């Protein structure tokens, strides 16, 4: 029995008669006997109750109780109840891409407001209506820089997330681009190495703020040098940090992307997330993905539509700016609800809380003998510490004590086996931070 199929035997008979065939099998005439499945060996169905019980059991086998000090670009922020409640409205989540604007103004206006919110955070002129996630968004920014300049050299800063870098390398494996990467440094971007790479063949410089190690930077000087050579500058940014930090627009950056998970989305074991992208108005036609624009209806009333669709695959096919079709509209709407709830002041306070809690944690960890906390450059809510032991082993020992203690950098950086990346969000209480430091001291003893 399939509870989602309303056809009764009587309906089936009537419908087959109307069609003029004897059986449902007869509708599959084009599938010849030689096309029949060699196997379709699947379990039989279950009731909703049984499925829920089974999945509850599976969920209970995951770490529900570890106190997270792990980030790496994905953070344990509080998700306000209104976020989930509003996007759980069937009118939002069971609709599709607004191809018919008259019966999709809800989605379209919500996405226009999302785009405006992203522009407010980043200071940029225009935003699209979302991409898959932070990694794919940075890849799209790189492709956009290559299209704008017609050049093929990419300069990647050593502070860009190693996950993003691996992903970009796979995507471009068959394309003939030249890649150079500046050295990995704990602190700010290596200006000398960066400048040496920039030339008239360079299409795009790829940056990240705060960088993977948590360090804050002001890229204005790099942007100025790049622009002298006609190079596009793309940067991935952490949206919560923009409650306080200098905006990409203030630094002169051309294309801004980021992971929007921290804008009210749960961690979801890796997705769905939200890739955002914003740029200058003059580059809008090179931007990938859906864009919602304002217009008027036949009566002159303000309304919203998907616009500049001549960039997209359903019109332009192989000449499109990207192959993206379905993006993550619902996640963008969720982010929009989040930004609206926080508001102008709340967003700044959220950023300040993250900053203060992380600073407190940094001070607490610095008291532990043998733990070295780098202080040379400012950080936001994540920072690197050097441990007297292998960080992966330390993290393993911290798990039974109830902590996901951070991300061991040796996982991606050979030679950095003793370094640990620690994230602290507004959710971590003083007690948790003190207990964390105490547990770490014990493990290191």
């Amino acid at each position, binding site marked *: 029995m399939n509870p989602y199929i*309303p056809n009764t035997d009587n309906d089936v008979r009537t*419908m087959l008669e109307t069609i003029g065939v004897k059986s449902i099998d007869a*509708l*599959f005439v*084009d599938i010849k006997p030689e096309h*029949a*499945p060699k*196997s379709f060996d699947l379990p039989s169905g279950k009731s909703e109750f049984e*499925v829920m019980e*089974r999945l*509850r059991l599976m969920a209970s086998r*995951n*770490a529900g109780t570890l106190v997270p000090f792990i980030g790496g670009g994905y953070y344990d922020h509080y998700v306000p109840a209104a976020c989930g409640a509003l996007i759980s409205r069937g009118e*939002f*989540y069971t*609709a599709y891409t607004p191809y018919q604007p008259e*019966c*999709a103004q*809800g*989605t379209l206006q919500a996405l226009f407001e999302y785009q405006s919110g992203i522009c*407010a955070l980043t200071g940029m*002129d225009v935003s699209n209506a979302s991409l*898959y996630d932070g990694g*794919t968004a940075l890849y799209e920014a790189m492709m956009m820089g290559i299209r704008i300049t017609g050049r093929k050299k990419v300069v990647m800063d050593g502070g860009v997330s190693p996950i993003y870098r691996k992903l970009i390398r*796979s*995507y471009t*494996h*068959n394309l003939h681009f030249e890649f150079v990467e500046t050295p990995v440094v704990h602190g700010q971007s290596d200006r000398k190495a960066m400048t040496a790479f920039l030339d008239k063949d360079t299409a795009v410089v790829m940056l990240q703020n705060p960088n993977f190690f948590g360090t804050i930077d002001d890229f204005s000087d790099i942007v100025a040098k790049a622009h002298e050579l006609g190079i596009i500058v793309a940067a991935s940014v952490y949206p919560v940090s923009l409650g*306080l*930090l*200098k905006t990409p627009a203030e630094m002169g950056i051309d294309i801004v992307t980021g992971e929007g998970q921290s804008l009210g989305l749960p961690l*979801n074991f*890796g*997705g*769905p997330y939200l890739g955002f992208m914003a740029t200058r*108005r003059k580059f809008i036609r090179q931007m990938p993905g859906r*864009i919602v624009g*304002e*217009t008027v209806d*036949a009566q002159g009333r303000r309304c*919203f539509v998907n*616009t500049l669709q001549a960039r997209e695959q359903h*019109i332009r096919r192989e000449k499109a700016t990207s*192959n993206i079709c*379905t*993006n*993550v*509209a619902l996640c963008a709407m969720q982010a929009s609800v989040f*930004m609206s*709830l*926080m*508001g*102008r002041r709340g967003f*700044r306070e959220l950023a300040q*809380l993250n*900053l203060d809690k992380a*600073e407190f944690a940094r001070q607490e960890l610095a008291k532990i003998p043998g733990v070295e906390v780098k202080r040379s450059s400012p950080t936001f809510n994540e920072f690197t510490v050097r441990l007297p032991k292998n960080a992966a082993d330390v993290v393993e020992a911290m*798990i039974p004590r109830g902590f996901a203690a951070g991300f061991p950098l040796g*996982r991606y950086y050979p030679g950095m086996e003793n370094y640990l990346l620690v994230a602290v969000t*507004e959710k971590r209480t003083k007690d948790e931070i003190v207990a964390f430091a105490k547990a770490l001291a014990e493990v290191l003893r």
Partner: protein
Amino acid sequence: MKLIFEKSVSGRQGFKLPESDVAVQTKIADKYLRQADATLPEVSELDVVRHFTQLSQMNFSVDANLYPLGSCTMKYNPKYTEKVAAMPGFCDLHPLLPQLKGGERYVQGALEVLYDSERWLSEITGMKAFTMQPLAGAHGELTGIMLMAAYHKAKGNKKKYIIIPDSAHGTNPASAAVAGYQIISVASDKKGGMDIEKLKAVLTDEVAGLMMTCPDTHGVFNSQVSEIAKLIHSVDGIMYYDGANLNATMGRCRPGDIGFDVVHVNLHKTFGTPHGGGGPGSGPVGVGEKLERFLPISRIVKRNDGMLVLDYNYPDSIGYIASFYGNFGIILRAYAYMILLGSDGLKATSDHAVLNANYVAARLKKYYQLAFDRICMHECLFSALKQTERGVHAIDIAKYLIDQRIHPPTVYFPLTVKEAIMIEPTETESKETMDVFIEAMVEADALSRSNPELFHDLPKTMPISRPDETRAAREMNVNFFALKA
């Protein structure tokens, strides 16, 4: 309706943050700080709730309306899958946990969802192995083409072209182009299938593969598919199966059995996960033996002790194609859906999807011209050419349906059929609901004879009438603040 930014009143705030319990007031140097606060709206929580609730009421949705949008499979999304996705233990799980030493012990439930989903999809499609990583259908296509490229590279094949039928979704040529291939488009024959003679004419040793939607966007299952596969394989090409229309054939035919080497599946179509107003989707990719060693990393493997772990040790892999393990929250919903329906439920899904589409086709073909007059699969394709002669275009009929509280079918796609109207009722719609739709379509045809002028002002019952799309593209007002400036 006002924008949320226009409802802003200085001093309001919609969320209470915790007081800081740490005696630290950190000050970052000015040069790193923004000059002014981000101009987010200042509104109360009720303002936000009412605003978005009112916005939602301006939408059509599967929950409230028939939504027979061809090629999109707008079936009912069962409510329990939302509860599953929100279970603590799933939704709050950090993706880096299994990459910690010993961390896999703490994500066994989540890895099992992924591992089992791979097995289910492999059995449904007849493929050897799956990756759940691709984040949407088009992302799956790109992954599939990258696998194809890796195969040819490993064999030293010099390949330049990918063949794509003209009826394909735009994502097919776009994905192939993004991966670095050139496109050869092949026209369809008079019955809607791919024209084999035309295929033979363009087939050379430089062809990397063929992308085929099966059944295709004409709603036709190409019974010559095995012959096409033989032709492509004769030049060591790869057969790519676009699973956009898998909802038609579960339990009836598996791409792996009929010559396809790589497939992608849209979980948000066939497996009942919500479309979210345009995503998030999920586009897992399956492969046969030939391509397995190239699958993206990480892969999930079961150790001898039964523990599921992430395995990165595949030297021939194309590498990372997503940051993590896919759109887990979506995969979880699809998994819950598959295990509830089981073998019989999935087969019944396809049977009734095809039955419903043929019922609509049979009843409407007296009034509208069928693009291909034959038994169809899960969607039926009409042309509004007859109505267009009376001055009523496919778009006008679409707008008429909106006033009847029905979401229009897909119009003007596929590009191979003029004035296309593509209807996909799905298995979850009842005969009565389809009858209401059919009567509305019949009435639209009658009105196209009696009063064609009437259509041009439709819809009349919505918050807005037809928007000026040209003006939107010319003015490019995509940001509230740029408008004000």
